[in-house]
């Protein structure tokens, strides 16, 4: 073994890290070379030297930890509120995971019941894979029927359209929606008894197109003459 190789093994490796072959080779060299043996005797363990440094308390460290924790959690909550799946937003606020959907479902059921009262007995298909889910809203949700074909109203943009559905629990509504992206606007359109209904929200259409879960929140209005009042409704697009 050459001197340089012996020094490299001595200073670059801990004894436990050497292979048996390297160890034998190094021991043989040290037995024959007094210069390297002397250097080996003088070589302190770098690990021992650094151990103290590694374990030293870094001033200001705990304060920095607090800052990181708070700013990270704040940013995470902000992100969560922008992209949360249905009901998860409320859990961040400390609501129990059971209470929130239960309350929302109860609300949705009551609203649905009111809307369905004049038309009981109609059966509606339940879609297998919901793409659009409505949060139970204190305001008037859209009264909808399954659409036979995508809405073709005069206000529908020529941009990308995606069919989405609203689902409710037992005895609830099921309907087809078009999510229409046009410029900076996202519209949700559906047909009920021919007139076109809308939910709109100025939101980057790219986000809706690309991401799996995005919130569409906006006001409703109706072309219908049946007096559906404008209101506010929140939808979650769920891929």
């Amino acid at each position, binding site marked *: 073994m050459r001197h340089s190789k012996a020094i*490299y093994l001595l*200073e*670059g*490796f801990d004894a436990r*890290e050497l292979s048996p072959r390297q160890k034998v080779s190094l021991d043989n060299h040290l037995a024959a070379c007094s210069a390297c043996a002397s250097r080996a005797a*003088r070589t*302190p*363990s*770098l*690990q*021992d*030297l*650094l151990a*103290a*440094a*590694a*374990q*030293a*308390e*870094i*001033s*200001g*460290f705990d*304060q*920095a*930890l607090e*800052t*990181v*924790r708070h*700013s*990270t*959690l704040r*940013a*995470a*909550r902000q*992100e*969560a509120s922008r992209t949360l*799946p249905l009901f*998860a937003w409320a*859990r*961040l606020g400390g609501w129990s*995971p059971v209470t929130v959907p239960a309350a929302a479902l109860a609300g949705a059921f009551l609203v649905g019941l009111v809307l369905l009262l004049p038309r009981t007995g109609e059966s509606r298909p339940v879609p297998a894979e919901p793409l659009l889910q409505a949060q139970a809203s204190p305001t008037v949700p859209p009264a909808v029927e399954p659409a036979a074909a995508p809405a073709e109203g005069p206000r529908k943009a020529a941009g990308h359209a995606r069919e989405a559905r609203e689902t409710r629990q037992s005895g609830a509504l099921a309907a087809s929606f078009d999510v229409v992206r046009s410029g900076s606007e996202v519209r949700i359109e559906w047909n009920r008894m021919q007139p076109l209904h809308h939910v709109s929200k100025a939101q980057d259409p790219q986000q809706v197109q690309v991401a799996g879960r995005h919130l569409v929140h906006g006001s409703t209005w109706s072309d219908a003459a049946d007096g559906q009042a404008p209101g506010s409704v929140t939808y979650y697009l769920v891929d």
Partner: protein
Amino acid sequence: MSADSSRVIESWASLLVRSREGDSLAFEELLRACERRVLTIAFQITGNLQDAQDVAQESFLRVYRSRDRFQDGRSFEAWLYRIVVNQARKSLARRRKRGMRSLEEAGVENFRDLSRPDPAQSAVAGDLSDKVVKLLQELSPRLRTVFILRDLQGMETAEIALILSRTETTVRRHSADARIRMRRLLEERHPGNFRQKVEKD
């Protein structure tokens, strides 16, 4: 990897799974569990507590955003540290671009501004720690990272290879090169510390 270490990884991974399933408290628990080590690594690589804070925060946010993509059964710790190392290197690159040298211009000075009254028992170690962190900045980012993970964080070669996507042979070689370079730097710049240690031995 030791049994204790494996248990920790399993625990962190399970917190991530809970967070993925919508338990927001789980992410905070995860943060508290690994924040100290993450900030330490970030500080040792960047040499600057302010940059380290940014690196740690960005790393945790990346974990949060990508938690759906984390595959069960893989090492969460390796995944986390890879993110931290990558973010720290980006931070170094940004600083180089800005033409700043952290320790001389911003790092150690600012770091000391943040200092609380120094406890007597850690004065010597703290002084050595400052010196070591300063010397680390003289290693190339590649050698520095391997040295930090191996000799300051005590990780195994296989674990480092996983984090850095290198072979174990490469990690061993970089580790040896980094140790030899650090040894030379310590001998040159702080012979007192080094001699003391030799005499003590």
